[in-house]
């Protein structure tokens, strides 16, 4: 029997805010891991274009490993493997998840950022140099702001994905949305109902993010050249919710 009352209870009447707290864990881990991932990705992207070849190898090997193995396995490696390599180094679940997600995201962001930096016309760097800008200043003032326009749409997708993928943290017992649904649901056989509650929260998070992303895109596109990107984002959202349409 489907327990609507349980769905309703956990959505609106729960005095302990069980799922709101779980959503908070999902959210903060996603935000922090994404932020670290972006910084890591930028460093790796710059390393991959460096003249000093060991930088390029290190960055290449890093990306190869983290993109080439499943995130779930990376989480489990940290959770089960780290205490074996370094005794006493049993990290709390949230730390394992945060580290694995950040490192993994860094690899994906480095590819996105590298492509975006490469998409900026080489004449922009030449003009910056010709005006007496050193490399760092030219990157910060001229190249990266222009690359941002290209980075933000895929970055939005990455973060959207991140919020949903944190659900795999439930396998090591982190009480984020999916984990909470399973643990609470198993007690009185309402896992299905609570997964629906979790899904509502996931949709809430991704929908809010969608609006924020669109706002950011407009901010980084002062010349309004990326109208097409905006349209694509709207389309993909309705497709995600309804499964079809444009």
């Amino acid at each position: 029997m489907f327990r609507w009352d349980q769905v309703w209870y956990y959505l609106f009447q729960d005095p302990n805010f069980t799922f709101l707290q779980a959503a908070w864990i999902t959210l903060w881990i996603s935000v922090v891991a994404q932020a670290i991932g972006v910084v890591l990705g930028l460093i790796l992207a710059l390393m991959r274009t460096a003249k000093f070849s060991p930088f390029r190898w290190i960055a290449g090997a890093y990306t190869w490993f983290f993109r080439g193995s499943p995130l779930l396995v990376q989480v489990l490696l940290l959770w089960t493997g780290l205490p074996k390599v370094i005794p006493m180094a049993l990290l709390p679940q949230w730390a394992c998840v945060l580290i694995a997600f950040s490192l993994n995201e860094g690899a994906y962001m480095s590819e996105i950022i590298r492509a975006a930096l490469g998409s900026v016309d080489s004449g922009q760097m030449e003009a910056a140099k010709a005006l007496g800008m050193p490399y760092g200043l030219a990157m910060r003032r001229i190249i990266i702001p222009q690359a941002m326009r290209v980075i933000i749409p895929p970055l939005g997708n990455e973060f959207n994905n991140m919020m949903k993928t944190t659900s795999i943290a439930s396998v090591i017992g982190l009480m984020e949305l999916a984990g909470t649904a399973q643990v609470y649901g198993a007690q009185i056989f309402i896992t299905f109902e609570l997964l629906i509650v979790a899904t509502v929260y996931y949709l809430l998070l991704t929908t809010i993010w969608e609006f924020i992303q669109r706002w950011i895109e407009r901010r980084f596109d002062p010349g309004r050249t990326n109208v097409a990107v905006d349209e694509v984002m709207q389309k993909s959202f309705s497709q995600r919710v309804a499964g079809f349409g444009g």
Partner: protein
Amino acid sequence: MTLEKLDNSPQNASNGPMVRTEQLVKRFGSNLVLNGVDFTVDRGQTVVIIGPSGSGKTTLLRCINHLEKIDSGRIFIDGQMVGYREQNGKIVEDSEKNIARMRAQVGFVFQRFNLFAHMTALENIIEAPIHVLRQPKDEVIERARVLLDKVGLANKEDAYPHRLSGGQQQRVAIARALAMNPKLMLFDEATSALDPELVGEVLKVMRQLAEEGMTMVVVTHEMGFARDVADHVIFMDKAQIVEQGSPQQIFNEAQNERTRSFLSRVL
């Protein structure tokens, strides 16, 4: 050694030529692009470099502010060696900081404008004076408006580059270079990417600059400009300077067969 020391003395720096190159050699792979090029540009002069495509004229210009490294030879701007310095008797590439400092004094105008796409016309102009020269923003903005007015774009300060025509973009690019108060301006085929009807407005700005006494090196296919505005014309072919002299000497009394045949094709 003694010669270089003399050249770097302040006295000489203010009197000698603005640009001097010695036996410039540049290769792209096995392709020799500059084969021992010597030339000088005096203060206040407009030197125009002409020649067929692939003759090395753009490369020569790009070497002057070290956008290209050179394989041998030397370049001096205002008596200072460009891009390289002597260390224990050897020539090594200069530090990034010194190269940037040199470039800040030399304006470069690109064939494809290269305006910063995420900035308005005004922002393009004030960017380097504020962040490279660290001049006060108010002052720089004021000067930028004067420059925009000078290039005839006073009403376009808030326009982004993609809203401007090629000719307008190039004039903003010239204003952007001038905002640094350069002692030398380099023009790399500044009108080659423009529609024919837009060439005139850019040449007019360049002509005005020359008349005001700016030291300029201009690589161009505009023979009319070379003839009317240049103090000195250099004809390059096959990685070398073939002939140079006043516009009169080059356009009317060319001695070299290659110069004559080139001019007969383009005039």
